[in-house]
């Protein structure tokens, strides 16, 4: 029974991470799947979301900290909104110079902004605490939930050990619920919007900007909306991540975890399809976690093991592009469906 609980606890941990990735994938799906915007700076938005929320909700700087700003101890929801807003503003600023140009330019501009963000995280210690990172980021309602309710239940003598162990992990269940609720909400937004005339314009732009323009649509404006909304969603994912892991620093948001995996998830699941984006996230995160077992079996060092896993995932991406470019689910044939 305890073994079973252990697995269950692992699954919760797995689902939380995969759920956060699924939110990121949905953000990318709006940009790439719906509109054809090539964003390879996802890590930057992910990081900005995490830091913004952490600074808004986290504790004030301690005596050992370099930073002199932040720690407003605001509610979690405010943190998420702030994360979304910060990412939206950055997306807007990148969009202005490059959204009128060919898609490659957006790609390189997003890459550039991600790099600049990484430099700021590393160097601006007054804001980001530099390499020491931000610590003690509070998980939402952890104190009341874990501290009172579970503390009472888990030591209750009538409960068997496995149940106590199960309950001691109870807060994660609550966090998972929060993640899934948000994921569901964002799923609802992206599904509803892609089936609406708004989404139709985005897809038209993806297919042929000239035609969309000739139909009287303001292509630049729609691309901007897509870029900004996608970025805001990525920011929200960043917020969740920060509040889940409680500690973030500049190295948390490497291009690999922040950008590459998400691309693979979306392509594998089926870009242009929200269900595909979510499915892809869970499957690829599963593959990622699964390869961990293999590299552990091979007894490789941490970095080597990670490299081997990325090599495998990279080959997988190329094979998908060659053999099944539409991904597992692919786009639905007729997307516009309001009724």
């Amino acid at each position: 029974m305890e073994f079973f609980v252990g697995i269950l606890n692992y699954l919760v941990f797995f689902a939380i991470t995969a759920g956060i990735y699924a939110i990121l994938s949905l953000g990318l799906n709006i940009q790439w799947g719906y509109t054809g915007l090539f964003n390879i700076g996802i890590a930057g938005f992910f990081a900005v979301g995490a830091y913004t929320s952490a600074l808004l909700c986290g504790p004030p700087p301690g005596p050992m900290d370099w930073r002199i700003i932040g720690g407003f101890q605001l509610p979690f929801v405010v943190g998420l909104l702030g994360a979304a807003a910060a990412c939206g503003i950055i997306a807007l600023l990148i969009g202005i110079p490059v959204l009128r140009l060919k898609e490659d330019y957006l790609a390189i501009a997003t890459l550039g902004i991600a790099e600049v963000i990484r430099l700021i995280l590393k160097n601006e210690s007054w804001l980001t605490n530099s390499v020491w990172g931000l610590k003690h980021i509070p998980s939402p309602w952890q104190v009341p939930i874990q501290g009172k309710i579970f503390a009472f239940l888990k030591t209750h003598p009538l409960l068997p050990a496995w149940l106590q162990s199960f309950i001691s992990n109870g807060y994660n269940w609550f966090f998972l619920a929060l993640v899934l609720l948000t994921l569901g909400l964002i799923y609802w937004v992206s599904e509803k919007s892609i089936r609406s005339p708004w989404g139709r314009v985005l897809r038209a732009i993806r297919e042929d900007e000239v035609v969309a323009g000739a139909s009287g649509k303001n292509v630049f404006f729609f691309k901007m909306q897509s870029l900004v909304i996608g970025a805001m969603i990525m920011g929200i994912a960043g917020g969740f991540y920060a509040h889940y892991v409680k500690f973030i620093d500049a190295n948390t948001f490497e291009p690999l975890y922040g950008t590459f995996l998400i691309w693979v998830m979306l392509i594998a699941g089926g870009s242009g399809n929200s269900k595909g984006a979510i499915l892809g996230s869970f499957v690829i995160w599963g593959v990622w976690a699964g390869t961990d077992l293999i590299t552990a079996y091979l007894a490789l060092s941490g970095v080597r093991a990670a490299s081997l896993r990325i090599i495998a995932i990279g080959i997988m991406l190329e094979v998908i592009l060659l053999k099944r470019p539409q991904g597992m689910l692919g786009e639905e044939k007729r997307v516009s469906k309001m009724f």
Partner: protein
Amino acid sequence: MTEGSVILEIKKLEKSFGGLKAVDRCSIEVKEGSITGLMGPNGAGKTTLFNLITGFYKSDKGEIWFHEEEITGLPVHKVVRKGIGRTFQIPRELREMTVLENLMLVPDNQKGEYIWNSLFRSRSVRAQERYIQDKALDVLEFLELIDLREEYAKNLSSGQKKLLELAKSLMAEPKLILLDEPGAGINPTLMKKLNRNIEQLRERGKTFFLIEHDMDLITYLCDTVIVMDRGRELVQGTPEEIKKDERVIEAYLGRA
């Protein structure tokens, strides 16, 4: 229909491409409610003129007036909103979208194009969508594309794509429709239907300005024909007059 009032006026328009004057001090008027044909030999500047009117190209000099309002230099989407629709000579379909979606994209001022409305005011958006879909289905029915409504546009044959292009121009409900060789690649039966449709739309107050080479089609449809040569208007008149005009034959055959 106000006989004689000018809907589109082009004044001394100029456009060069690397030293080559594609449109050269071109002045043209299109009367409201007319079906005006635009002819001319290859390289006369017809398609360039269309691209200038619709904002795809920016003119070097000159003015374009639509409904007594200057539209020179407006971006494409604003020109469309003023009420000028166009078709492309070579069809440009939205490949990975269905035929129906291709059409439903076109109407302007859709409430659901604002994301806020499509998320939170779905009732009114839905009503409008239903209206637009009915309209699109009508157009498809008319052009005999109805069976293909759920097909990807990329899977259509080239003749069907040409029809789709026409269907899209019908969806836009513009006041002035520019058709770039509507007749090319369409079978005669459909062509007749198309003619009838254009006539009907004209009776409802639409104006047509079309590039066409098929003289039969022009004779049948157009009340006025403008012949362009070397970037400007050469002759204007009824189809009968044009056919007899020596200058036109000269332009087509080249000077001796």
